[in-house]
């Protein structure tokens, strides 16, 4: 390609997706709509998840939190909307994204060991016929160590507790060595020790300059764990830093009065 043609192509690229060129934002959603049948689960949502931060996606049951995340990743089809990752369309940035699905989404009797699952995170890197090198196996082991599961490498995954299963999923995401980590309810149904282990790993990722986005359901831990919140109830309600956005007013708007008075008072307590 000649230099002129390249320049034109670059300009075309800018013209086609202005948002992409405008930012290096880890994850930008524009006008995402997902519908089951003719009832939108997520309607025309815009979002920009910041770098060097941990963002919680918050909303009541059925508000489309997980659906939005899955639609952004292309796990489920979306009716409309564009997704860009670090300023380029998501298809060009798959290697920079690590996803941790809900634990309940897989069959834990599947014939695979802990280390095999973690190595799945390396599959794109090794390709179809490449061999998993010793260095890669060592890397997978190290990821297991980071979530405190090094001793479990050769267990069949069905023998793990719920919290341990969640740690394995996190280790698999770590093995991808990505820049953007998307987690779907990582703390759902795990023990306290696992919750602490996971949050430590996530905070370390953040301090290493990675972006972390998690669907989260426990309002009482939002202030301790996250810097940024995204409130959703089918539509986007609010988005911003925890201090300014995680307010009673916004929560009321999100949950539509479904949060009891006692629950709100508790959160106020946490706030003050």
């Amino acid at each position: 390609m000649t230099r002129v043609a390249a320049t034109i192509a670059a300009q075309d690229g800018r013209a086609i997706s202005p948002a992409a060129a405008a930012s290096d934002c880890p994850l930008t959603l524009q006008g995402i709509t997902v519908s089951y049948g003719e009832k939108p689960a997520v309607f025309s949502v815009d979002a920009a998840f910041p770098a060097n931060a941990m963002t919680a996606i918050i909303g009541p049951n059925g508000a489309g939190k997980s659906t939005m995340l899955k639609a952004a990743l292309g796990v489920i089809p979306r009716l409309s909307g564009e997704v860009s990752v670090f300023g380029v369309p998501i298809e060009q940035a798959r290697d920079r994204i690590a996803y941790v699905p809900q634990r309940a989404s897989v069959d834990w009797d599947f014939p695979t060991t802990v280390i095999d699952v973690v190595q799945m995170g390396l599959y794109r890197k090794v390709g179809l016929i490449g061999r998993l090198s010793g260095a890669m196996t060592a890397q997978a082991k190290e990821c297991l160590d980071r979530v405190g599961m090094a001793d479990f490498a050769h267990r069949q995954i069905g023998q793990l507790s719920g919290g341990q299963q969640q740690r394995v999923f996190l280790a698999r995401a770590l093995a991808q060595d990505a820049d953007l980590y998307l987690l779907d309810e990582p703390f759902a149904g795990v023990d306290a020790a696992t919750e602490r282990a996971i949050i430590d790993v996530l905070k370390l990722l953040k301090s290493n300059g990675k972006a972390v986005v998690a669907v989260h359901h426990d309002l009482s831990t939002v202030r301790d764990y996250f810097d940024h919140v995204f409130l959703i109830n089918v539509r986007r309600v609010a988005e911003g830093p925890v201090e300014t956005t995680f307010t009673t007013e916004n929560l009321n708007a999100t949950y539509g009065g479904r949060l009891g008075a006692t629950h709100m008072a508790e959160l106020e307590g946490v706030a003050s």
Partner: protein
Amino acid sequence: MNSFLDALLLNAGYNAALVAIGAGLLGFAAGSSGTFLFLRKRALVSDATAHATLPGVGIAFIIMVSMGYDGRNLIGLLLGSAVTAAIGLVIIEWIARRTRLAEDAAIGAVLGTFFGLGIVLLTIIQTMSSGRQAGLEGFLLGSTAGMLFQDAVVIAIGGSLAVFATWLMRRPMTLVAFDAEYAAAMGYNVRRIDLLMMGLVMAVTVIGLKLVGLILIVAMLIIPPVTARFWTDRSGRVVWIAGVVGGASGYMGAALSASASAMPTGPIIVLMAAAIFLFSLIFAPVRGVAAAVIRHHRFQRRVHRRQGLLSLSREEPIREKFTLRLLERDGLIRPDGVPTDKGRAQAAKVSRDERRWDVAREVHQDAGLTGRYDGLTPIEEVFTSDEIQEFDRRLGPPVAVGGLA
């Protein structure tokens, strides 16, 4: 028996040897390429695909005859069967994805409709002037009588390609079978990989059609991976073990049917696979039924023994007959129920371990260690001896059981 050995050693004649080798290769290909469909929990799709081959066989025959060729040309018949099998596959996939019907409903509908159409076509062919000696009903249950070298070559080449494709795509297929959401998030095209899994199985079905028949080929795709699952906890090994199970049942089944007159090859092969399955179901280590029963009994004994010892240490009466028998057998109590010296010593140890655990929970806030308390695991397996000494220091001197020691 001698004739079976002859057949196994390929000494039972050219045709028998050809059939045994062909069936062995087919079994290997079917077992290994059926594995991922089984792991994806869509094994029955292969049954619908197999039944959907029949109209293709009929249509191909009619077309070839009407064009003046030999209607029994194997390649032509297999191509025809592949076309309708693919159509059936696409319809199932479409119904499951685009309508509110579940996949099992789609499988049932496609299987029945295509098979019905196929039977109608075969009946029409019977009435055609050139159809009398067609022998197409051999595709239903398989036939080995007129197996040609060319047929074995088709199986060898097609089977090798299927095994190679399974090996090549093992990583994407493992990902999709285990965690399709994660695979999609990584950028894999899940739908295409699903179609590939089904396409592989369809290819094996088509090449195995003449030997095993469309009704029973599904057994060769499903039974070997199910059997292999008993022997390993790693999907990569399931593929190869399933291949070996399939290959062995194909080879031995063909040899067995060759050694007895008028034994149908396809059904014997399937029964051979079922026998290996049954053996694995019962005797496989860890996952087998026998192992599970033994494990359960051992566990039950450990529980009873522990409870009995705790009762002794608390000087409570033991009422359960099983516990008493167990303790007596181990020389821990006398026939009249009074603890022996050994029984007292072990009861003291068990009761001390209980109190050590109480201390351990205070000292070690780490739930990873104290979470391993189940009342059965010996404390020595969880804590080091110096840690246990520390617990003992806090507990004070040992207390004798029953005040007798």
